[in-house]
Each structure stands twice: as structure tokens, then as C-alpha cells.
């Protein structure tokens, strides 16, 4: 008999959402995060991925040449994941990152000022429009940042850094709330 039972839980399950006039920080229920990889020069790969991943379920964010993240609010069964792989291979490979990365939502009228403490990207809405995405450093941690609304961003971070990122964001948000 093992003396310690390993249980499966989301990385941020014990965190309380931050609410305030300037910044809100929350983590959505675990959904699906897929990493899609194609040949860097394959110009039609994004359209090919979008046609296979139903756009009403998945939204697609560019990561780097030939690479995208696809994010869905609901979990994906292994059978559905296998079906997607079969539809995309061999032109595109899919890696299930649903448990490998964690989503954090930061929003509010001061959210750009808060994120500017951690990243060097110009987050002005004229430069980083709704739907823009970038892999960048936030503090000392690599993360993927997507603008999902005028004052709303999604941060994708490796699971083992999620708690550190959350705590950093809470500290960064304090002056605005």
C-alpha cells in the first residue's frame, strides 16, 4: 500500500482569483491545449490546421515559424485527440499540452501597465492588436501571451512555472487594486 496517494489536480486549483478595479487575475477550468508543429516554410499549414480543428471549439495562436497553440475551453478525449492527429499527420504533428501548460487570464483597465513590468513587448493596442500572440519573457519565466480582448490577455505558462507566475502576477497587480 502506498503511504501517499498521488491525486490529479490543476496546477492553480488552490489559488483564489484576484478581483479589483484595475486588474483581475483568474485561471479558467482546465480545457485542451494542443501544440501544432509543421515545417517552418509551409505557408498553408495554418489554414490546414484551422480546417481540421473546428474554429468554434479551438482558437489558434501563433507561437513561432511553423508552430501554433490551439486552445479550447473544454477538455478533449483521447479518442478525439487521436482523430485530430490522424486528420493532420504527416503534414502537421500535434502534441497534447493540456496538462503541460496552464492558462492564466489577466484583464482590467490597468492590465497593460501591469504586464509592462514583466515583458518588453509593446502592448499598445495599435501594436499588439486583439488576436496578437507572442512568446516572450514575463519576469524570468518564458510564457506565451495572447491579447484576447481590448484589456484582456491570456498567459500560457509551463505547468511547473504556473504557481510562480501566478504569485508574480498577484504581486505585480497590487498597486492597481
Amino acid at each position, binding site marked *: 500500500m502506498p503511504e501517499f496517494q498521488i491525486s490529479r489536480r490543476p496546477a492553480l486549483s488552490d489559488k483564489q482569483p484576484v478581483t479589483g478595479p484595475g486588474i483581475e487575475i483568474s485561471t479558467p477550468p482546465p480545457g485542451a491545449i494542443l501544440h501544432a508543429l509543421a515545417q*517552418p516554410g509551409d505557408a498553408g499549414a495554418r489554414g490546414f490546421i484551422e480546417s481540421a480543428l473546428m474554429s468554434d471549439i479551438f482558437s489558434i495562436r501563433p*507561437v*513561432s*515559424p511553423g508552430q501554433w497553440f490551439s486552445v479550447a475551453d473544454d477538455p478533449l478525449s483521447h479518442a478525439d485527440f487521436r482523430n485530430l492527429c490522424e486528420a493532420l499527420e504527416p503534414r502537421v504533428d500535434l502534441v497534447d499540452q493540456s496538462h503541460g501548460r496552464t492558462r492564466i487570464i489577466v484583464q482590467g483597465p490597468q492590465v497593460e501597465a501591469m504586464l509592462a513590468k514583466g515583458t*518588453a513587448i509593446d502592448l499598445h493596442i495599435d501594436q499588439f492588436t486583439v488576436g496578437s500572440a*507572442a*512568446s*516572450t*519573457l514575463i519576469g524570468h519565466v*518564458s510564457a506565451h501571451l495572447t491579447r484576447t480582448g481590448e484589456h484582456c490577455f491570456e498567459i500560457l505558462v509551463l505547468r511547473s512555472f504556473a504557481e510562480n507566475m501566478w504569485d508574480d502576477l498577484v504581486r505585480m497587480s497590487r498597486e492597481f487594486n
Partner: protein
Amino acid sequence: MASLVPCPHCGLRPKEEFTIKGAALPRPSPDAGADAWLDHVYLRDNPRGALDEFWHHTSGCRRWLIVSRDTFSHEISACRDAADPAKERS
């Protein structure tokens, strides 16, 4: 040291996002001999002026880049993907 690097994929990014490997030098042929390989692997000039270097955009697109910079003025004159076949190294 240059502090803002124009990544061809990500745009202007701070040097903290990158890892520098070193001078981007033409590779000797496999049978070039021990002297040429010793030189290639271990011996480096320390030029004052133009230098091509391998930079890895570790916290960005994770592509290997070739950054052409001036070691004296810190100015970057070019930055391209190391796999880009269109241009020859200068």
C-alpha cells in the same frame, strides 16, 4: 552588448530573451585536418568591429539566428534566421 535584437520572426526583443553561442564561422570540411578543426573549435579572433554571431531566441520563437553586430559601437546591422538559405554569410 547590444540590448535590443530585431528578431526576424518576433520583432524587437531584449537581449535577456536570447542565448549567445558565439561567432558564426564557416565550418571546415570533414577532412580539413586537425589543425583546421582545432582552429575552428577552439581559437577565436576578438575583432573590434563587425562580427556575425549565433544567437538563440530561447524565450521567444526558439529559432537560431545570425546577428551581425559591431563589437565597438554595439550597433546591430542585420539579424536573420540561421536556416535562411537565401543569403550567404558575409
